[in-house]
């Protein structure tokens, strides 16, 4: 059974204070690891897909990295508008195409 654990559950940062969110996973063969952002009352918004260990993707102040057991979402010099819940999900080779999600990290960036 695929499993995803995200930490911390909540993170408060000052504007400009860089940090990282962690996503640990177990899966019987990884098809892909996905990061989403979710704002209150909205559906998850796609950020990145990572397929193999060592891969990195960047978008504005966000960078996602992947190892064989975990992924990190690095946030550099965050702004208040980066406040959201960040969700990590895996798609295993044996799980058809559905995603298994972690519980998310709720990020608050204070001005």
């Amino acid at each position, binding site marked *: 059974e695929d499993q995803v654990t995200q930490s911390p559950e909540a993170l408060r940062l000052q504007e400009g204070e860089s940090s990282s969110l962690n996503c640990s996973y177990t899966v019987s063969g990884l098809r*892909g690891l996905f990061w989403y952002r979710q704002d209150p009352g*909205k559906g998850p918004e796609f950020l990145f897909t990572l397929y193999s260990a060592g891969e990195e993707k960047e978008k504005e102040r966000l960078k996602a990295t992947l190892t064989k057991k975990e992924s990190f979402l690095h946030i550099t010099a965050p702004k208040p508008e980066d406040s959201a819940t960040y*969700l990590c999900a895996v798609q295993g080779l044996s799980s*058809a*195409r559905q*995603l298994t999600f972690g*519980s998310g990290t709720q990020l608050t960036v204070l001005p």
Partner: protein
Amino acid sequence: GAGVSQSPSNKVTEKGKDVELRCDPISGHTALYWYRQSLGQGLEFLIYFQGNSAPDKSGLPSDRFSAERTGGSVSTLTIQRTQQEDSAVYLCASSHGDTQYFGPGTRLTVL
């Protein structure tokens, strides 16, 4: 372009009533997914449609839940004899490749 749309955005019903939730996927996307997001829990997979193939219903929590997809496009999720534990946000996603794009969700409240 148009994203995934869902209706209604909010639904309040009484215990024991049936409800229907609608999803319009992104045009051209062959795969469609339903997930449920409950307070304090991560997104939970419900059902997956791919083209004209038989749906993967492995995530449906009980036989009160069913879904159909007409003409390879619009999908309806039906919950019969609703219970209070069915209260959640129901999210629909569609994809053409690996990346799933989510709609805004339907918030279901069962009184």
